[in-house]
């Protein structure tokens, strides 16, 4: 009885796997579209993100390489990234808040996508604004962290705590990531405005592209936003925890 049960279940998973593989093959050997469920915009964003992954990977691998090749001791992250709060040094507290902030923003973004598809325009727009706010707060905290480190004498070309490459990599990588977040915030604001006004219901043409937008753009924004969030997790792990 049980044995039979197990075999049928086994057969079933095999069946679904097989049919899935066949499904993908059928899609790729069909005409018109290779990703049947993805619109042009979504496909483009995914492929862009793959390319951007390579950019971030190159940055992070380069950082690891210089960290290992430099002859001077690497500054201790838990000391450098500590904040004095109430006379006590709390390591990594700011980063913890920043990470929490960014992950929360991913949550509000996901909710915005959901409401956009439900055509609850106001809710979607407000959630996007909230997301943008969290993003802006993240960049703000990053600016604070940069200021603090600069006051302590950390420069791209050197610092009092150890290897010069510490400052170089830190400013370069967090700067590049912060740039991504800032771009995201700007586009969130633009899309939130369009959603609020109902541009996608009346088919108002875009200012630059002069094409009609669709609610899907919210989801595409979401893809980007989650990606930027995910990248941060890696930066956090490799830069602050190593």
């Amino acid at each position, binding site marked *: 009885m049980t044995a039979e049960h197990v075999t049928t279940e086994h057969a079933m998973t095999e069946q679904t796997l097989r049919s899935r593989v066949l499904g993908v093959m059928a899609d*790729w*050997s*069909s*005409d*018109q*579209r*290779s*990703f*049947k469920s*993805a*619109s*042009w*915009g979504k*496909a*483009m964003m995914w*492929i*862009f993100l*793959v*390319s*951007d992954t*390579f*950019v971030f*990977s*190159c*940055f992070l691998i*380069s950082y690891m*390489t*210089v960290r290992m*090749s*430099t*002859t*001077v001791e690497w500054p201790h992250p838990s000391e450098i990234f500590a904040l004095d709060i109430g006379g006590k040094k709390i390591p990594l507290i700011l980063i913890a808040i920043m990470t929490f902030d960014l992950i929360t923003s991913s949550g509000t973004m996901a909710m915005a996508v959901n409401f956009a598809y439900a055509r609850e325009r106001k809710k979607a727009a407000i959630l996007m604004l909230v997301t943008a706010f969290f993003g802006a707060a993240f960049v703000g905290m990053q600016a604070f962290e940069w200021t603090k480190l600069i006051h302590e004498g950390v420069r*791209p*070309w*050197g610092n009092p705590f150890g*290897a*010069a*490459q510490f*400052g*170089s*990599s830190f400013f*370069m990588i967090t700067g*590049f990531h912060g740039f991504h977040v800032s771009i995201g915030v700007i586009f969130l604001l633009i899309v939130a405005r369009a959603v609020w006004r109902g541009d996608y219901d009346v088919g108002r043409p875009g200012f*630059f*592209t*002069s*094409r*009609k937008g669709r609610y899907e753009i919210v989801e595409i924004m979401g893809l980007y936003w989650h990606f930027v969030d995910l990248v941060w997790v890696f930066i956090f792990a490799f830069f602050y925890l190593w």
Partner: protein
Amino acid sequence: MTDASVPQNVAPPPAEVEDVELYHAHSWLTKYVFCQDAKVIAIQYAGTAITVGVLALVLSWVIRLQLAFPGAIPFIDASVYYQSVTMHGMIMVVYMLTAIFLGGFGNYLIPLMVGARDMVFPYVNMLSYWVYLIATLVLVSSYFVPGGPTGAGWTLYPPQSILTGTPGYDYGIILMLVSLILFIVGFTMGGLNYVVTVLQARTRGMTLMRMPLTVWGIFAAAVMALLAFPGLFVACVMLLLDRTLGTSFFMPSLVELGERKDYVGGSPILFQHLFWFFGHPEVYIVALPAFGIVSDLISVHARKNIFGYRMMVWAIIAIGVLSMVVWGHHMYVSGMDPWFGFFFAVTTLAIAVPTALKVYNWVLTLWHADIHFTTPMLFALGFLVTFVNGGITGLYLGNVIVDVPLSATLFVVAHFHMVMGIAPVLVIFGAIYHWYPKITGRMMDERLGKIHFWITFLGAYAIFFPMHYLGVLGMPRRFYEMGETAFVPASAATLNIVITVIALAVGFAQSIFFYNLFRSLKYGAPAGGNPWRAASLEWQTPETPPGHGNWGAHLPVVYRWPYAYSVPGAPEDYLPQNAPPMSGEHSP
């Protein structure tokens, strides 16, 4: 596949995506300058690329003049020489070849060949061109800043590239890096368009395995570029920071002119890895579109289907994948763990397998074919010869032991000019002669075309073939002057003079091509819609040159592959991709 008597795919599946709305230009400015039509963008890309290409050609004369008549020409001093070598190499590889294959032919041919109205995001596509234009302007502007352009060599290796001894230390290197970063940003916008258009915007009946190999080559190259350019992007950003902010990513502590620099503890080898992670795929980014185009030229002008179409597609994919993991063969002389050397040598030589397969298939396509020696066909055949030549010397250089003495000699210069200099340029010429009638509605002059071909082909051979010999003699590459060098016989100097004279002549002879190009605009014989009787979709447009939106009211429907030549029983000797199936027909 099931029943031979029923034509397959009589009715391809219904359209999955509604027809797109296109931007319709209202003014001269949006129609010809800030234009979102891929065909116009293609011409803008190609025009810019050819213009800087001519600049690079002139720079190669500067190099050659110095090598033949050392010190005889007053304005060519060591700095000018190195600046010319650098700018020549960088412009040719990145700003000319990459831009013309992907931005030029990619933009023109992809939408037409897959049956789309335009690229998927025309606005982004337009931005791509303008960013590219700015990148070239920034690059060229380095001629007008104090110190001139950088002389670091197109590989820009630090530490030397950002030290004061290198020409262009002040601004040239900065402009070069900024320009490359802009180029990559611009390319990414275009590249995403090319990839998504191929994947998601094909017309009904156009399966991936019915795409012309041209589209396959450009598609694979665009994917590779999207994955490889990040390496260069990161390298440029970091080198720029090293130069401007004094960071030490790539710079070890060093003493220059008795003065200790502030750099400390960086890794120059890291730059080489990043650079070649881009640099090697780059070779195939220009080669794969050339492969694809050549396949189509050969097939059309030999009136035969391409031999082993599926093999050709898989070979393109295999080459694309393999070439992402071979970059280390450029770093044999930088020293590496023998096991890495072994890995990179093996993968490098493995690429020869799919590449050789392609060459065999081209040759087999020609076998017993009805070859028309038109100008495009001649250029395609010229490509085959130079490519095989360069490919064979590539096998020499792929082996660590052979590479170490030959690297940094003219042998390497001969090798890469054969395989990625001359070969793709011949394809570009062939492709222009081939598609010019579609783009302008007129034919280019065949007689001038043939004269142009023979001068260019034989001339290029005469220039680069002797360089193998000079390389084996030990003539170093990137040397301003040899002075008294015992191992180089006097005859080598004579040979150098011969090469230079031919190089100048071949360079000037290109004016035949430009004369033909512009004259035919007005006086060329009217071409009609399909002068080569070609089967692929771009020749089946309702108008020639194709109008805005390419296809008039209805998108074409595709019933077969693009190589239906010499079909028995067909009314003509070919069947266009969109002609309804004949009864009993059985094409893929």
